[in-house]
């Protein structure tokens, strides 16, 4: 902390409710970025819509505040166009696991090097407190006219089933812990997911700070989430351990890294392989596409590339 000169606060007034867990999240982000000495212009913070969706505006780095549920595909295009950028996604639980879950699953399958930080508050904050997909069955938070009739998703299990190679949980009120997990995720190569327990003081009167403080515990020493050899068996076992851990909730809620697999190729690497090294060397964003206002392809080059379509007429 403080070792870097950059101030990662954007200076904008933060209009989250006083006491909101989001303050802890953004504080951890400032610290993690600072400790990793990230350059603001090489970082892109992408968000969806919700209270969480405002996050990029509060960070001194590129910010792309997108559509509800679609932060991941926006991030995907940015990253694929310029794989040298660090792309971090901040999304609400409704955004990611409700309307956006097809993209959540797809990112796992791709293992693109994008980090997804879910602000898990159990409610739709910005639309005034409806149930989110992480709210358990039968729970009635403040703003609901009736108890929740839909069951909750287990985000950790879903992330693992979808193929994320870094899966963790942290807690907004434990900035130190979150910062460390964030740093690990940022240093991981591949799709990372962090489920951040985030008290919503205004609408979630069930998953409160007190609720979490009583239950949250940190995964420690004995717990090894990292795939170290990369054998199929090892991968499977680490996954299963993580899945078992993810089922803990009622009395004790573990936070920490659940699963890391550094062996799976990323989408960028797969593309680079397809393009025989041409992709990472000069990704799309770094290619020039014209010469003196004209296309790069001359008539001859055009004919060479598209020779299959050319027919010389037989006289």
């Amino acid at each position, binding site marked *: 902390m403080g070792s870097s000169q950059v101030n990662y606060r954007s200076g904008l007034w933060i209009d989250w409710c006083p006491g909101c867990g989001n303050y802890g999240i953004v504080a951890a982000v400032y610290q993690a970025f600072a400790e990793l000495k990230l350059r603001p212009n090489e970082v892109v913070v992408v968000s969806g819509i919700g209270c969480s969706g405002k996050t*990029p505006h509060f960070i001194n780095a590129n910010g792309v505040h*997108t559509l509800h549920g679609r932060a*991941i595909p926006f991030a995907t295009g*940015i990253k694929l166009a*310029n794989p040298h950028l660090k792309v971090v996604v901040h999304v609400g639980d409704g955004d990611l696991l409700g309307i956006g879950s097809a993209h959540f699953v797809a990112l796992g399958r791709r293992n693109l090097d994008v980090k997804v930080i879910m602000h898990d508050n159990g409610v739709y904050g910005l639309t005034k407190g409806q149930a989110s997909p992480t709210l358990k069955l039968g729970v009635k938070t403040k703003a609901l006219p009736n108890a929740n009739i839909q069951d909750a998703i287990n985000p950790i299990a879903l992330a693992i089933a979808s193929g994320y190679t870094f899966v963790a949980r942290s807690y907004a009120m434990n900035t130190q812990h979150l910062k460390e997990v964030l740093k690990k995720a940022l240093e991981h190569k591949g799709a990372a997911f962090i489920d951040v327990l985030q008290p919503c003081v205004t609408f979630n009167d069930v998953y409160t700070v007190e609720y979490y403080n009583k239950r949250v515990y940190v995964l420690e020493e004995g717990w090894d989430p990292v795939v170290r050899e990369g054998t199929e068996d090892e991968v499977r076992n680490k996954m299963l351990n993580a899945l078992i851990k993810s089922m803990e909730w009622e009395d004790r809620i573990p936070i920490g890294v659940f699963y890391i697999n550094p062996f799976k190729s990323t989408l960028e690497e797969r593309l680079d392989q397809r393009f025989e090294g041409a992709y990472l060397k000069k990704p799309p964003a770094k290619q020039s596409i*014209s010469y003196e206002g004209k296309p*790069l392809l001359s*008539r001859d080059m055009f004919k060479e590339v598209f020779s299959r*379509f050319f027919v010389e007429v*037989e006289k």
Partner: protein
Amino acid sequence: MLEEISFIVGGPQGSGIETSAVVLTYAFARAGYGVLVDREYFSNIKGRHSYALFRVSSKRVPKALKYLTNMLVALDAETVFTHYKSLKDGGILVYDVGISLKKFDAIPSIEDELRSRLAKEFKDLGLDGTVESLANYLRSRKNVFVVGLDYSKVIEEFSKEASLKPHQASMYLSSIPTAAVTTLTGLRESALSFAYMRRFNDPKVVEENIKLSKVVANRVRRVYDFPPLLKNSEIGFNEVLVVSGNDVVAMGKVVGGLRYQAYYPITPAADESFTLETYSRFKVGDEYATVVVLQTEDEIAAITSAIGAALAGVRAATATSGPGFSLMVEGLGWAGMNEVPVVITYYQRGGPSTGLPTRGSQTDLLFTLFASHGEFPRIVIASGDHEEAFKDSIEIMNLTEKYQVPGIHLLDKFLANSLMTLTPPELSELRVDRGVVTEGGDNYLRFDMSKGPVSPRAFLGSNVIMYYTGDEHNEVGHISEDPINRINMYTKRMVKLELMSKEIPEDFLVRLYGDLDADVLLIGWGYVKGVALEVMDELSRGGDISCAYLHLRGFSPFPSRFVAEVLKAFEGKNVVALEHSYLAQLSKVIAMNTGFMIRKEIVKFTGRPMLVDEVLQALIKIVEGVSNREVLSLGE
């Protein structure tokens, strides 16, 4: 010997008809003819009826197709039943006598509706419903020359000639129609070899096909010993491209510098992305250019990831059709709000909903003009033929980058799937205009309002940081709900409409073919261009009626001044909209922009393309005052 011919080659989907169409096109191209081919097929992988409708000319490249054909070449009985009516008096039917006794009502793949129509027709004609009775009827009443070949005998003979096992030989079945066509038209063997070589890239396959072709030729000549149908070409091509609409758009994108395409598979757009992926790495100087082509999880991801790529400074697009575009509407609005140059290549097909997914339409014009909630400027252009499609796919990247707006490039299934011989494009005339791009600098403001409606654009990853949001925002890109900022920023975006109207050349957006003092004005856009121009020609050859054609290529911005002037000149005369739709949507767009109401129209919404002969007839009816609206129905 004819200067030009039309013909159909048909058979079950998946049986090789697609290949026949491609091979024949290459072969005619090689021999210097002008070729245009429409490909029709069901939303089905194997078994339903598919066919290719050709027009081949020794004088020029045909711009449109005709209903009446000189030849019907059938791989199966269904083809004969389906198309017999399109054979001209005196045309030629090629079919398999091995299936002469097949009855139309024993063919399960024929749809109920056609089956009952056939039942009625055959009853009226007193036919027993077999292929044979139909062939006899055609021969005796329609003067059709019937070339009955026994396809199994052909294969048997071929299997001996080529020393192939029967099951191997039978895989060449679909080459019989190809061979029949080349024989009857008089196409030389070298052209056919070339075509097979191009298609299969395997000398052995070529050799065998040539053997088969000889077997067929011999047998055909045994019954049909007239001179070949088609005159030698006099066009004088040196080289041509044989391309579909999908192909030319992919080429245009490569040439124009596209570097990111995200797509979700959908007919008739997916082939474009397939072609693009095939040519996604190519050498430029001593480096490789690469185009990332990503198959996404859905169309929402396709458009939004393309927007992401555009923000990072890459020319980015997606290609889709109606259902996909319907899902992209929200993403389009984000691009509008954030002034992102992203391109949607939109191939219209038969709607609404899933509709006729493998057939064509022009029913999405109004939708594209107003898609997404709220107001923002956009580019909407539509291409009328392969050449326009190539150029437009480049130009829309220029325009969207110059004005920093999203763009929609409208095409349709007709164009997408039709093959033609195209003169290779002149690349030196093309330009790449990326608009005002900057690396940033102190106090960079992404939405700087001090420089007019178009703010200098820095890319994510440049020296500065920037913010984007779908919310209304200030010059920095941060959310702002302030009413005065709202007016200014909203207006900044919207005045681009005027800017584009002023700057984009009218002659790109609209063009009048023919004279202002003609008797009749046809108005159209997109794939009616060819048929309109041919109808115009035919009428001018006829001499009685002079006809002009107003072709719209740009809809946003809309060339109101020019269109209004032309319509004024034609006030009191016959002004007829031509469109593959029910509503003749262009008329509404014109009314909205100029106040002129076009009250006559020729429309077609069967999903099949308008054909020269039917349009001509319909137009004459309208000119004669018999009707104001003609609904076309020809083609199966």
